[in-house]
């Protein structure tokens, strides 16, 4: 550092003021560590894209006053899952018995989390891109940004899904397109009253609505609708490896923005935002296969990896969990770092506790438990046949002019139409269910 009055070393340097970085920074600053968070965006949150559902319990372990203080938009009281096929839509609607998750924009939430870390004593430097994690003799000793180096006893890598630093460091390989998905999203200003009236919600009640079917044009993935206070987040998630194959073979008709547009103007869904306008459009990469995305090691001498960079995201098709996993990994990293310092410092051996704690935690267990469904998510049977069969059957049951088929007849007929045998389908589903 060029200026003598400014420290050239911190106890902890956190790269990235996202949920994982800020929770680690908050807990470490509270424990008395000198913590610096370096964030590339203009303030925390400006590069975040997730307007969705966040599970509260893991966050409450870090911020017990979460419910009162955090920028929560609505508590999810209704979950919907829709199968969309050629103009037909079949929807499962579940009214929750209790409130476990809330909706919010991660831009706001990440800012709140970073503010908490700063209140606890961490220093946040924004508008600064970290270019490299620097090592010396196999030990991480700090970071470099442009010509500036800054040293730390330990670096917490919370750089997010595009793990450029980890790749440079050799801790992660180049991202495999089959392990990531592209999320695109629009924010639509529907208005508080209209959201509540049109989606049968009362004040503060929210909805998480996932869609699957031909809206992704055969690409594994799906659509989502989340209700915020007075806006709606509408988007698509697309498996990148399969989307690339589809584009290459010519099977993909539309550009990605066109696919989202088709969902926005879909005659069934668009009635929800019929008189509204799009306020913002964004895109972000997300993790498709959590465990496959995970680097071989989540720690080394002087370094721990948390959040998306560590592959800690679960996408089951009916639910996406990333923010709470990130926060929880930040918490475990902070606890492991505190322990490591009590035991002589952040050596590789002492930091292995982090990975151990993570593997014992619900985060890793969830990722292992649901690895089957993650595989299934890549199966076109699931994405094209299931919505087609469900809607085919419903059509036969309810669109008959004179003679209605029995449920079994309708089911068998819709299987025949999709050239799929019921037994094969059931076997497939069974093999998947057994892995769930």
């Amino acid at each position, binding site marked *: 550092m060029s200026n003598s009055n400014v420290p050239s070393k911190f106890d902890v340097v956190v790269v990235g003021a996202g949920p994982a970085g800020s929770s680690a920074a908050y807990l470490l600053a509270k424990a008395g560590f000198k913590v610096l968070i370096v964030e590339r965006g*203009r303030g925390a949150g400006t590069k975040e894209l997730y307007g969705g559902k966040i599970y509260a319990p893991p966050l409450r372990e870090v911020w017990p006053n979460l419910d009162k203080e955090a920028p929560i938009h609505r508590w999810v009281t209704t979950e919907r899952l829709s199968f969309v096929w050629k103009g037909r839509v079949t929807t499962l609607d579940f009214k929750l018995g209790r409130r476990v998750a809330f909706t919010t924009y991660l831009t706001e939430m990440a800012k709140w989390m970073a503010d908490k870390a700063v209140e606890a004593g961490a220093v946040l430097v924004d*508008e600064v891109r970290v270019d490299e994690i620097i090592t010396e003799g196999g030990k991480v000793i700090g970071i470099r940004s442009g010509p500036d180096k800054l040293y730390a006893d330990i670096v917490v890598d919370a750089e997010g899904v*595009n793990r450029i630093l980890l790749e440079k460091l050799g801790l992660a390989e180049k991202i495999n397109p089959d392990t990531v998905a592209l999320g695109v999203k629009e924010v639509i200003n529907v208005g508080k009253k209209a959201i509540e009236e049109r989606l049968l919600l009362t004040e503060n009640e929210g909805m998480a609505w996932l869609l699957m079917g031909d809206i992704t044009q055969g690409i594994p993935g799906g659509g989502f609708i989340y209700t915020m206070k007075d806006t709606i987040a509408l988007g698509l998630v697309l498996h990148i490896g399969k989307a*690339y194959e589809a584009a290459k073979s010519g099977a993909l008709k539309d550009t990605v923005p066109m696919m989202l547009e088709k969902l926005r*103007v879909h005659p069934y869904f668009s009635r929800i935002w019929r008189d509204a306008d799009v306020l*913002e459009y964004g895109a*972000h990469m997300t993790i498709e296969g959590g465990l496959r995305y995970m680097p071989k090691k989540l720690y080394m001498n002087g370094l721990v990896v948390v959040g998306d960079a560590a592959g800690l995201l679960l996408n089951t098709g009916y639910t996406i969990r990333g923010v709470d996993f990130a926060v929880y990994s930040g918490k475990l990293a902070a606890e492991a770092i505190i322990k490591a310092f009590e035991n002589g410092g952040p050596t590789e051996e002492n930091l292995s506790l982090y990975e151990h704690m993570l593997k014992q935690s619900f985060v890793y267990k969830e990722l292992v438990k649901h690895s089957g469904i993650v595989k299934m998510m890549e199966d076109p049977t699931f994405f094209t046949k299931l919505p087609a069969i469900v809607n085919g059957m419903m059509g036969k049951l309810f669109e008959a002019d004179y003679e209605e088929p029995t449920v079994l007849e309708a089911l068998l007929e819709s299987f025949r139409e999709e050239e799929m045998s019921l037994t094969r389908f059931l076997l497939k589903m069974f093999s998947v269910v057994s892995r769930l």
Partner: protein
Amino acid sequence: MSGEVKGLRPIKIEDLLQRTVYDVDEEPHIEIIDERGVPKELVKLCPCSCYSMVGERLLYSYEGCLECGLCRVLSEPWGLRWEYPKSGRGVQYRFT
């Protein structure tokens, strides 16, 4: 009801990107080094339609970039220089 129904109206990608805030850097943060290492499929897949074919050439304009990293994942490291913008510039999400 009278008048146009906005929710049903298609929006051109240029107009859509106008709704997102950028502080565009003078210096591009992404650059095609060798076209052979950058797939043409990005014309369809890039969420901000930053890639386009002009004749046989694949062109990239960084101004509307949403910094998702898709093109980095699909390109060869020698084909594309991909960095985040400096000094807090680039896309400035307000909601999402």
